């Protein structure tokens, strides 16, 4: 047995990897355990869209960190600053788009110049030029490598038995299996990927109604969310389901999701789909992650729902500040785990 580490991270998804990296950079001795392969959980399933959401300082902080890191990332991380184009179907949505921070508004004509394949009759769009996409499994592996960490394959059954200066629980959608008292629920999502259609779509395209799907409480919902990969492939999302534990494709959700996408990009009907898959987001009642101390030396970094690739870097900064007793880069209160434990 080696000496107890300063920090032990449970979970080698992108959130755990970012925490390990951030703390290792401060000189801490960090170990990471995962029951599966690094980046094999939600991190392998997600779209890897790096997106600033309104009123979410964690996402803005994270985008700044991503931009600073971009030049160092390996080629396989496929970082691409393609921007997000929020699509407004009508005047009402266009008005909502205008309220987004830091976007450039596109009228109808500019919208079709930017994305000629969109169906006619849309009102316009809001372009967030700073947003990007990334291939999260490779980033995860790279962060772990930079941290000098060899992930130990091990399933943790009881966090109380772990010996370390600080234990970070970055267990994503599986968090309740370890800590049943925390309200972190799996929320299933489907994705489909096409063959290569380079140049057909140029930005990550998201309908402005997306937040209704993400933040709504409906048991099942879909939204238009399509990402061009640097390979020319198109990643088609997104769906959300509560209370489903099986990972198989739910045909009716896949069908609804694709129909929704055809409604915005009719040419997708003809595109050859080569694979479909599902993943589980870790969702919380107030749609915000759990970042910070839960009790004793146990810290949480989980509950990132559909935004954990984006907010992994910000999460790590915020948590490292708390563990090291340094000033927080953004207010930490909204994310504190004890908000569910008052």
């Amino acid at each position: 047995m080696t000496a107890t580490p300063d920090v032990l991270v449970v979970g080698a998804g992108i959130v755990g990897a970012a925490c390990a990296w951030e703390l290792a950079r401060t000189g801490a001795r960090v170990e990471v355990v995962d029951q599966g392969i690094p980046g094999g959980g939600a991190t392998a399933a997600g779209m890897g869209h790096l997106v600033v959401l309104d009123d979410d300082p964690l996402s803005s902080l994270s985008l700044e960190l991503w931009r600073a890191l971009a030049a160092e990332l390996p080629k396989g991380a496929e970082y691409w600053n393609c921007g997000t184009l929020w699509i407004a179907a009508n005047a009402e949505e266009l008005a909502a788009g205008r309220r987004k921070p830091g976007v450039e508004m596109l009228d109808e004509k500019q919208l079709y110049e930017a994305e000629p394949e969109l169906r006619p009759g849309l009102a316009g769009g809001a372009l967030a030029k700073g947003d990007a996409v990334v291939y999260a499994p490779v980033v995860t592996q790279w962060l772990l490598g930079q941290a000098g960490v060899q992930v130990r394959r091990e399933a943790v059954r009881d966090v109380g038995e772990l010996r370390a200066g600080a234990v970070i629980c970055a267990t994503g959608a599986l968090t309740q299996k370890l800590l049943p008292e925390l309200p972190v629920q799996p929320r299933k999502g489907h994705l489909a990927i096409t063959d290569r259609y380079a140049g057909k779509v140029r930005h990550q395209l998201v309908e402005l109604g997306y937040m209704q799907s993400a933040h709504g409480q409906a048991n099942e919902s879909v939204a238009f969310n399509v990402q061009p990969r640097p390979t020319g492939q198109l990643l088609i999302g997104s769906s959300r389901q509560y209370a489903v534990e099986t990972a198989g494709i739910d045909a009716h959700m896949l069908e609804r999701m694709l129909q929704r996408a055809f409604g915005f990009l009719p040419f997708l009907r003809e595109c050859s789909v080569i694979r479909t898959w599902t993943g589980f987001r870790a969702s919380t009642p107030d749609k915000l992650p759990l970042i910070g101390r839960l009790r004793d030396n146990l810290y949480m970094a989980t509950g990132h729902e559909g935004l954990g690739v984006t907010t992994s870097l910000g999460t790590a900064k915020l948590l490292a500040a708390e563990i090291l007793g340094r000033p927080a880069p953004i207010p930490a209160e909204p994310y504190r785990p004890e908000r569910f434990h008052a």
Partner: protein
Amino acid sequence: MNAFDIAIVGAGPAGLAAARAAARSGKSVAVIDDNPEAGGQIWRGAAQIPLAAGARLFAMTRVFDVRPGFEVHTAPHGVIRAERLILATGARELFLPFPGWTEAGVAGAGALQTLVKSGMDVRGRRVLVAGSGPLLVAVAASLRAKGARVLGVAEQAPLGRIVPFLLRYAAKLPQATALRARLFGVPYWTGVWPVSFAAGRVALSNGRELDVDFLACGFGLVPNSEAAQLLGCRVEDGFVVVDSRQETTVRGVYCAGEPTGIGGLEKALEEGERAGAAATGQAVRPGRTGAFVRDLARAFALDGRLYGLARPETLICRCEEVPLAELAMHREWREAKLQTRCGMGACQGRICGPVAARLFGWTACSVRPPLVPVAAEWLATGQRQQEPGSDR
């Protein structure tokens, strides 16, 4: 909506024999195949069993999903429903990587044969056929019949293992004598395989070098068991497990031909007959080809040295251009796939998956719809009836 008593996926020998047997019962039969005509790999549109009267052929129809019930999802014929399902999906070729295997001039043995059968001109072209199994001889014969100059057949298995097999099954291989006559004068080297290919020159493991227009390679067959896997049928070592009536571990799903064990034409016909009879409640004749499958696999078992031919820079995944060195860093298929994109391309690991299984002992990922690439429209219009409560 298309509804039948029996749906058969695959119109090769197994599927056609199954259709013939099933149609005898008077039940309605659908046969679905992605080729323009019935016949499968071996007959290619010149099927020696006519499509049973009363059976309906859906040609150029790809099956991309199969669901309990049973629903066979196809493009472009939508959902075909059936009470019983017979999977006769055949096999594909195994390619093994060696330096130069992805260069122009190297082709799959069966693939080259298919091209020639559909009109490609190989007259006077120098061809070396290499790899393993009886298929090589069939390919060499048919290329020669079309005017190719077949320089030789390089069979990796040693003579000492092939001869007893041939002696034992000479009577069972009716084509064998005819093939030998058609191959008269073509050398058949045993215990020999290609070690590299560059600019039209093949280097063989015995030190010889040959200049060729085509190197036609095939190292055996890999069963197409994906449809069975999707339905949850038990699959062992890649092969679909069936009982003496060809029924899989999922009730009402039968499997015949190569997916249950590589055994060629006679086995495919016999199993197709049994599956068609069993699925329609007719008496089933016992099988006779079990030992043949085992002996064939033994006689042509691959030499371990074939797995060591690839160099660090040799591509393993052609779709995503992933070389051996990048894969060798990983511990399992899923990790290698996530980190390198190996198997993520259009073929979805159908080619590199079996290679990785042999080189690294990795088992491939789960099977999900679509089984084959399909226009998004077909995936989205499953014509599935909404179950009550599914849209809460």
